[in-house]
């Protein structure tokens, strides 16, 4: 095993061990923190497919995170108020079953990614960054003014949604759900990177002319990657909303997009475990620096600057000390 794989194994085991220990030591808040890490890492894994493999610098991934969150919020709100979602053309009830919510979140965010991606990918480079940012803002303003579902106040769910056979109100059990999903996503992302699709997508990032010359259309590759990326980030959004039992337009703001991107970068762009390490470090910093000063974001900004300017491979790059591998 090389150092990167060792580090990855250590991190994923640690992420499991800490909540297990916290459960026994009766420190439920540590479990909540670990759950947050797992969920944000999942969002980062989603973004990393577009950003790391595909080179698509999306500053609008908060849109999918938020859509996932609202999928949960809307379904659960209807379920808790016993109001059907729609009565015509057919009766659609809300639900508090996580698997159904996840499915809806994934489908909704994938559809949104399809529309936003289809339009945005007509452009490239800096235009792409800005147009994704603008689509994110558009949804943000829409959510704020959409009073049927709380507008700026957001939507609160009194009780966490249910998963068959588990008690999701126990912090550890909800953590395990998120952890398993994160592991599944990591597995999928690893397979994807090595699959024919990953090879072609990565080639399209490195050299568009090469891909076209072998008879593959980069646009289709990128759009597919964008949709997969959006769907995973959307799933993370649904889980995040369930963690907080709350969803609000904040999830859609461009600061959220920036933060998801920060997880990916701190860990290392294009590294499979980059988002996991990045999210863990971000949460850790938030709590450590937050203890030092109310103005902790100054330090966060400084740290981010140092990483971008001097440690381009992120934490994994600094530790394992080699370029991103694509084998």
């Amino acid at each position, binding site marked *: 095993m090389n150092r990167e794989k060792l580090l990855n194994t250590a991190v994923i085991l640690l992420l499991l061990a800490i909540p297990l220990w916290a459960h026994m030591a009766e*420190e*439920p*808040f*540590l479990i*909540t*923190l670990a759950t*947050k890490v797992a969920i944000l890492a999942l969002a980062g894994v989603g973004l990393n497919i577009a950003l790391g493999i595909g080179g698509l610098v999306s500053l609008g991934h908060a849109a999918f995170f938020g859509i996932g969150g609202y999928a949960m919020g809307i379904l659960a709100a209807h379920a808790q108020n016993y109001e059907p979602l729609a009565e015509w053309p057919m009766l659609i009830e809300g639900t508090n079953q996580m698997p159904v919510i996840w499915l809806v979140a994934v489908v909704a965010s994938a559809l949104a990614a399809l529309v936003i991606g289809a339009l945005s990918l007509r452009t490239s480079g800096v235009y792409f960054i800005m147009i994704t940012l603008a689509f994110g803002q558009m949804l943000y*303003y829409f959510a*704020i*003014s959409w*009073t049927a579902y*709380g*507008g*700026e*106040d*957001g939507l*609160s769910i*009194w009780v966490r949604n249910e998963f068959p056979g588990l008690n999701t109100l126990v*912090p550890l059990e909800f953590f395990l759900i998120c952890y398993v999903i994160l592991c599944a996503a990591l597995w999928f992302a690893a397979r994807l990177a090595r699959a024919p699709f990953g090879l072609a997508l990565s080639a399209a990032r490195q050299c568009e002319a090469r891909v076209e010359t072998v008879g593959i259309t980069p646009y289709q590759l990128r759009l597919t990657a964008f949709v997969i990326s959006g769907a995973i980030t959307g799933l993370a959004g649904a889980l*995040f909303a369930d963690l*907080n*039992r*709350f969803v*609000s337009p*904040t*999830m859609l703001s461009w600061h959220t997009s920036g933060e998801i991107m920060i997880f990916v970068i701190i860990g290392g762009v294009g590294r499979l475990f980059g988002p996991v390490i990045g999210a863990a470090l971000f949460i850790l910093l938030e*709590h450590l620096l*937050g*203890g030092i000063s*109310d*103005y902790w*974001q100054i330090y966060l900004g400084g740290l981010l600057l140092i990483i971008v300017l001097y440690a381009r491979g992120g934490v994994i790059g600094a530790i394992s000390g080699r370029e991103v591998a694509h084998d």
Partner: protein
Amino acid sequence: MKTLTTMALATAVSALAMSAAAETKIGMITTLSGGGAGLGVDVRDGFMLAMEQAGRDDIEVVIEDDQRKPESAVQIADRMIQSEKVDIMTGIIWSNLAMAVVPAATAQGVFYLSPNAGPSALAGKRCHENYFNVAWQNDNLHEAAGAYANDAGLKNSYILAPNYPAGKDALTGYKRMYQGDLAGETYTKMGQTDYAAEIAQIRASGADSVYFFLPGGMGISFLKQYADSGVDLPVVGPAFSFDQGILQAVGGAALGIKNTSQWNKDLDNPANTAFVAAFEQKYERLPSLYASQGYDTANLILSALNKADVDDKDAFRAALKAAEFDSVRGDFKFGDNHHPIQNIYVREVIQEGDVFTNKIIATGLENHADAYAAECKM
């Protein structure tokens, strides 16, 4: 852990020894960074002033910054309840954060005392025996403004608020009391900074007065631009846009404007006089509405702790409900839904030396209760 403030400043023993001695733990979640941090700072300072004055070494206050993010607030609340086992929570400034935190907190058996936000749901259908609002129900100040408009003989108001739930509640509250006609009703963008278009509409509408609810920087922008536009219709607003912290940034543009508030620094009662003097002495600035609410909240808790142990929930709840403390607002009592029944005054912005501040000119509503109490089944 962000800020752990251990009370009992009378005796300077080690923090460790004190937290071991603390019998009542209070968790304060409020906004101390990001937009709107000024409000949280004021609530905290008012609250801590009262705690300091009480000098009790058996109360520990844990203060955390929510950054005005609902997600942060929820997670801090989870930690305070699950890990730190707080008995009482307070501090939240914004309605959306309160909606995210309060129902879960009260359901877990914690008392929550709101020093600022009063969303209608928590006053009505979703009221809870462990939830007390020490400030106002969100509609109250707007209702008082509507009542004042009637008293002042205003017959054709132009009303505006941001396009979000609290904005809609504000205009609903105003219209609940106001009996005249509406020259226009406009919902502006959240965070909007330029109101030239709205002011042009107002000018053209033939209104005889303007009512607006635009919290924070939005209100500052509106007032400056309104004053500069040459439209000189009388303006009425809730206290939020005319409070001590914000008024200095608005400057002369606010002079003479009538606004509604349940408190002002010139309210004539001994508790208030003492509070204003102590606050100015400690923090070297005039107290704001928010500081007064934080101060009242702390004193309400202290009064209840004097009568009952917080672990005896029923007794403590009854002690809170009785609200036997010297409020800086003068008379203060709770309605059945644990929301205040209080006077709401009309203030006018004045200048004292080079400081802009308010003075009370009338009483808008006397012993006013909120409109949602009937929906509360408690």
